[in-house]
């Protein structure tokens, strides 16, 4: 019995010491909470940053802009650096949740191409440093899809009954509705409820053909040939192709979403200077090269572009040129009414 009590006490002491270490360990060192998309960084750069600056990084990930927003909006979690997409950034700016950046602390931001700065979501270029850009594409497996069907380069492929059970779809409403709205020829930022309802009908029609609604699970399912067709982001198509040479992709002729994901600092961050140091570090040329190589997305970092394999930067789907971009549209922040409608319609599609 005594032994048991002793072991309990020991356990308590152990736990307490563990806790004190977990809590405020290495006092004096700042810990930065970085919240990013999954599979969106070369993890080896984090220890490099810690070594270089003495700032610790607590790195966590999310699967969608909406998930990230809910977490920071509840006020329950405190992050310093987040890397959301354009429309989510403008929402955050509108709701006064971002801190203006002090670009004196981010000298490396000069490497970022001017064409990616001052876009609609941050017209004054006050809050953001672009991290990646790209378009949505349709990815398909050449050995499973009839070349004639793919040749049309159309979104109709995602609704083709021939491939019932082999089609994957975005598991977030904004991207999924984006596809449906493009298919119908409507704006991705439509403020007309009827157009949204029509898009919802399209998605409902598609549901029986869909194998699964997924986000990053797309990588395995496409690589292993579990699924034949999926819409996703251009940079990821490249990575999937690396794992399976049968994979090909195209920017749909009906139009696509042009996106920019950018690094921001949250207003409530107690470590603004350190957060800016992190952003500056991510904009170092060698780090930007590593990032671009591992995640496959187009980088807005001009020096990095020069150093990357020309085969990658010459890829006109990933590094889409002006002509292609003319047929794309950036997501803008939707009005609260349309946002609510979108979320209700999405729940409706999923629950039936």
């Amino acid at each position, binding site marked *: 019995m005594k032994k048991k009590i002793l072991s309990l006490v020991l356990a308590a002491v152990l736990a307490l010491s563990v806790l004190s270490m977990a809590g405020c360990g290495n006092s004096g060192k700042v810990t930065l909470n970085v919240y990013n998309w999954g599979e969106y960084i070369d993890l080896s750069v984090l220890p490099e940053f810690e070594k270089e600056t003495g700032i610790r990084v607590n790195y966590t990930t999310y699967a969608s802009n909406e998930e990230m927003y809910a977490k920071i909006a509840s006020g329950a979690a405190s992050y310093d650096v987040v890397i959301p997409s354009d429309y989510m950034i403008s929402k955050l700016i509108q709701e006064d949740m971002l801190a203006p950046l002090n670009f004196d602390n981010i000298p490396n931001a000069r490497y970022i191409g001017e064409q990616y700065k001052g876009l609609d979501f941050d017209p004054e270029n006050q809050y953001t440093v672009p991290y990646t850009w790209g378009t949505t594409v349709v990815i398909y497996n050449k050995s499973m899809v009839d070349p004639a069907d793919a040749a049309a380069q159309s979104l109709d492929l995602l609704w083709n009954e021939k491939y019932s059970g082999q089609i994957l779809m975005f598991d977030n*409403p904004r991207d999924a509705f984006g596809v449906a709205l493009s298919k119908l020829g409507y704006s991705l930022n439509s403020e007309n409820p009827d157009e949204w309802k029509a898009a919802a009908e399209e998605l409902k029609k598609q549901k029986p053909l869909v194998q699964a609604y*997924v986000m990053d699970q797309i990588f395995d399912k496409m690589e292993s040939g579990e699924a034949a067709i999926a819409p996703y982001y251009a940079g990821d198509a490249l990575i999937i192709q690396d794992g399976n040479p049968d994979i090909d992709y195209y920017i749909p002729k009906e139009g696509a979403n042009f996106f920019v994901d950018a690094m921001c600092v949250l207003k409530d961050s107690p470590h603004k200077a350190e957060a800016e140091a992190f952003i500056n570090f991510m904009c170092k040329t060698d780090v930007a090269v590593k990032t671009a190589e591992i995640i496959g997305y187009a980088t807005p970092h001009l020096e990095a572009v020069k150093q990357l394999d020309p085969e990658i930067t010459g890829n006109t789907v990933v590094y889409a040129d002006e002509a292609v971009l003319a047929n794309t549209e950036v997501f803008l922040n939707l009005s609260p009414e349309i946002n609510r409608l979108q979320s209700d319609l*999405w*729940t409706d599609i999923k629950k039936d």
Partner: protein
Amino acid sequence: MHRKSLSRVAINAPYTVWMAIFVLVPIALVVYYAFTDAAGRFTLQNVASIVDYSHTFFTSLELALISTAICLVLAYPLAYAISRMHVKRQSTMIMLVMLPMWMNFLIRTYAWMTILEGNGLINRAVRALGGEGFHMINTNGAVVLGMVYNFLPYMILPIYTVLTKIEQSTIEAAQDLGANRVNIFRRVLLPMSVPGVISGITMVFVPAVSTFVISKLLGGGKTFLIGDIIENYFLGNTGTVDYNIGAALSLVLMILILISMAIMNHFDKDASAGGIM
């Protein structure tokens, strides 16, 4: 006397305060949010909007009931067989039943994806044998399988516990009196094991009806259960955070479970009354 009651208050104080703040207040907050709108005004709208989700409630109930029934059918014979084994063997077998439960259910559910996929292990084996392959993953059937797999031990254990209390001599006495297998099961085993069956049913049904993970992993986001909707409203996966509707759905779920448990307890009383006769 006075000192004694005072010390009793002192003894209960930490527990009372803790449970009040962290159990009762949160439940009260759920009720509060369920009956107010975003501005904090009283409304019945949230609770009324449950009608929109009746289909989802129905699916959740259906899948949970099917899983519970399958668990019961699968668990009873095994629990009985174990309860008739040699005592030493019994504890080994029960350990074997419990061991998978100690593994995190996410990991165990995830492993099923590998087995059930179109190019998964079952289909590979079937094709190697010249078969056609089946479509299994991302269906309601896969979700039911995930539930049965995860919660089966919860059914085996309580049934086993009551069955061990039935003496072998009772069964033998019934046999001596000329009862056949069916009659022994119907007149002796079943009535005596009702309490175990009841707690097994509750232990399987409650987590099954409220899960949101199994449906996500094995249903491919196509099977939407009530847990998924609650999760979405609290974590904003659909772009909208709405605690009010989320709370209303949770409240309904809670009441639904309370009702089904009351029904089960009723059965329990009836059965044990019958058993004594």
